[in-house]
């Protein structure tokens, strides 16, 4: 086994990883290695054959694959080294990794590692849905790669579970493949994505069943029917030949869990500071791994910002991680927030313009609701915001770093007014 080495290794060539690689090269970092387990770079957008992508990055409307191609081309033109069909199987201290390549197992040593492994949808099994286990049950991601990458149709008349943004992506994917969903089902009282999205099933003549949930799946070889319970408790049988479980994204942290890096139990991703640094300061993370789930464009801008921190760190420009303040919360409404810890420098001036580039705290809530979100430093409110939060919508709160310089404890809470 030949030991490879590089300055920065990035794991995952989706929008976050590609953006980070591109920016690192633009900043003059010599060796940037971008590792992708699939046979082509591009990440989820590559599987997502419809619009809209690219507004933030290229100021034009692109389909997922076209958007991915542009980013990949940009990376190649800038001299990013792409390592495809290569899976990182192990992370160890000091930027040491084990890779699986078509030629077998290989070690890799990087000065800095950026983890951009993204997120994935929750499949049927983890949702504990009752019934048999026939063919035709999959997530949107699996459907999209089958339809857009392989031109295969796994069913003709599925039920779509969920009304997140990705659920509507499932609808569009079905339309592309000549698949006619028999219903779209969600247990919440309104569409989880933006309200206008509810128009789409109407246009496509797919019944939208809110306040309803899937009770069980039946079928021997292929799905034959599902049982759906409505808000009154009445259970109806819907004949169908497939079930798409869409959304309920979780962080793809399977590489991190068995490693030495500390995990944030709320988000399911690694613990990071305001620079995206993990508990081992040679590792960084960004993108949907930290906050399931945001758009490609958001992950792209995060990747670009992270590159600045990584570049600075290569030249000793980030404060040491000896003094870390953990942000605490007792609020059950807050599903997760990131970053979870703040690195406090020796001198207040060392926070510098770099840290002020941080977008602040990103949060998501368990349910829709409204209230006042407050960040306290030693019981003094240093940032607050009134918000009306939808369950899956990203919320931001500024991080006034200079005010945190000498504080001992940070806490976050939400004072709820009324639940919607």
């Amino acid at each position, binding site marked *: 086994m030949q030991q490879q080495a590089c300055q920065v290794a990035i794991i995952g060539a989706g929008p976050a990883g590609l953006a980070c690689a591109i920016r690192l090269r633009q900043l003059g970092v010599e060796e940037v290695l971008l590792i992708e387990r699939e046979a082509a770079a591009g990440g989820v957008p590559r599987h997502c054959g419809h619009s809209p992508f690219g507004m933030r990055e290229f100021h034009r409307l692109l389909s997922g694959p076209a958007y991915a191609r542009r980013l990949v081309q940009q990376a190649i033109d800038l001299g990013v080294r792409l390592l495809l069909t290569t*899976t990182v199987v192990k992370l160890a201290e000091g930027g040491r990794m084990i890779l699986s390549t078509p030629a077998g197992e290989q070690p890799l040593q990087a000065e800095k590692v950026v983890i951009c492994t993204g997120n994935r949808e929750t499949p049927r099994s983890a949702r504990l849905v009752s019934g048999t286990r026939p063919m035709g049950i999959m997530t949107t991601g699996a459907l999209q790669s089958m339809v857009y990458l392989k031109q295969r149709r796994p069913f003709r008349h599925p039920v779509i579970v969920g009304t997140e943004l990705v659920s509507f992506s499932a609808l569009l994917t079905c339309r592309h493949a000549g698949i006619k969903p028999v219903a779209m089902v969600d247990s919440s009282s309104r569409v989880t994505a933006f309200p206008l999205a509810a128009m789409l099933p109407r246009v496509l003549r797919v019944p939208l069943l809110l306040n309803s949930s899937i009770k069980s799946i039946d079928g021997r070889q292929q799905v034959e029917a599902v049982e759906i319970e409505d808000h009154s408790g009445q259970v109806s049988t819907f004949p169908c030949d497939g079930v798409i479980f869409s959304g309920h994204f979780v962080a793809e942290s399977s590489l991190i869990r068995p490693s030495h890096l500390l995990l944030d139990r709320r988000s399911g991703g690694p613990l990071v500071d305001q620079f995206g640094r993990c508990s081992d300061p040679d590792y960084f993370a960004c993108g949907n791994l930290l906050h399931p789930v945001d758009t490609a464009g958001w992950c792209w801008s995060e990747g670009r910002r992270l590159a600045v921190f990584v570049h600075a760190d290569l030249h000793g420009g980030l404060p040491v991680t000896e003094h870390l303040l953990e942000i605490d919360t007792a609020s059950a409404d807050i599903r997760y927030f990131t970053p979870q810890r703040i690195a406090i420098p020796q001198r207040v001036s060392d926070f510098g313009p770099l840290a002020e580039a941080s977008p602040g705290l990103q949060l998501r809530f368990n349910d829709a609701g409204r209230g006042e979100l407050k960040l306290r430093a030693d019981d003094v409110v240093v940032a607050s915001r009134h918000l009306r939060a939808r369950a899956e919508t990203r919320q931001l709160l500024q991080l006034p770093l200079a005010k945190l310089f000498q504080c001992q404890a940070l806490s976050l809470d939400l004072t709820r007014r009324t639940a919607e």
Partner: protein
Amino acid sequence: MRANDDLFDIIVVGSGVVGSAMARRFTLEGARVLVIEKSSDTLDGASKANSAILHTGFDASPSGSQEQVCIAEGYAEYLQIRARLNLPLLECGALLLAWNQQEADRLEQILRDAHRNGVSSARLISRKQVLDREPQIGAAVVAAIEVPGEFVVDPWSAPYAYLLQAIENGARLERSCELLGGSFDGDSWRLETGKGQFRGRQVINCAGLFGDHIDQLLIGQSSFEIRPRKGQFVVFDKSAASLTRSILLPVPTETTKGIVVCPTIFGNLLVGPTAEEQPSRERADTDSGALAELIKRGRAILPALEYHGVTATYAGIRPATEHKDYQIKWEHQQNYCCVGGIRSTGLSAALGIAAQVFREFSAAGARHQPVEDPLWPQVPGIAETVQRGWQQADNGGIVCHCELVTRREIENALQGRIAPGSLAELKRRTRVTMGRCQGFYCSAELSELTNGFFEQALGEKF
């Protein structure tokens, strides 16, 4: 119907773990063996879902029962042959945990039974010893019996290896070959199947969940009635496997061994099974209420399970009967043997059952010349305890990222000797799609790789 003039020495009905071990034993002893399987795949009945524990039989009762004897012999033979077939073994040991004084009071008796069953390494250990060994176990634990010899195996590669060795040494397998009827003419059997007629001197019924039906069909009566017992399981993510190195058993009740928490050979953590009587021999539904209950039970045993996700859920059906013991019955006048009621311990006992049946068969006067220098096929290593395909050169790259299954492993399985006829069987051979994402990434690639191999394709081209 196609006539088939070959006369087999032995026709084994069913290719579950028992039928596979039976075919292997008789083939190695020199018999010409035919295995008939009604499904398009082997292991499609009771053998497809179990807890994958290689039992010592420490808790089998009464001592000297068919079950206890077969487990002891099967256990010993597995350990003896496994390396030559490349079968894995997780030497984890078990702790039988008492959670209150009432349960603790029963440990003495269980220990006496274990020693009577020849499992002399079993011993009582204190609460402190339990927690020293497994610090993640719930603090309410009172005491335990340690059984160092309880191990974990690969529940699918083992029967596959048995059947493969039978076939490589001359046995024949017919799948999609349902038994429709048969007659015995005083010398040999003539079996009618979905693939025509087959003749054999001796029939061995290893039909598992349909054992009583096959008895009725061929000899007009059965000494037992199958009472299907469903067991549901929850498989936790690989991260949870760090919570215990041991199989964690409860104090058993009269009717069930109870809910077990154990590591799997694939690096996951398993909680189950439930024990639910049901009429159907084929439908193995999972049920959200029962699964939630299993998770709750798992968390009571290992509180930190709360922080680990669920990878998969499944259910299997065990061929329980009205009897407690196995039903191994001979009709020597009719050259017929039934191996019925092999419930949850079949994986551990199969090799022992086959050896017992062969001994009885030869005691009745049959003579064969054992195969000289038999072939020992090596099955692919898919367990976490052996070197995996992805670690080797020219593996074609990884297709299933969660379970690290390579393109080469999938191609080899598809083109192998007992080629999988469905995705379900391909999963059992390679672990593909069995990981935490359940096919999120690899379904598309698989639909292309398996194109033309399965009766039911993974999606149609559009």
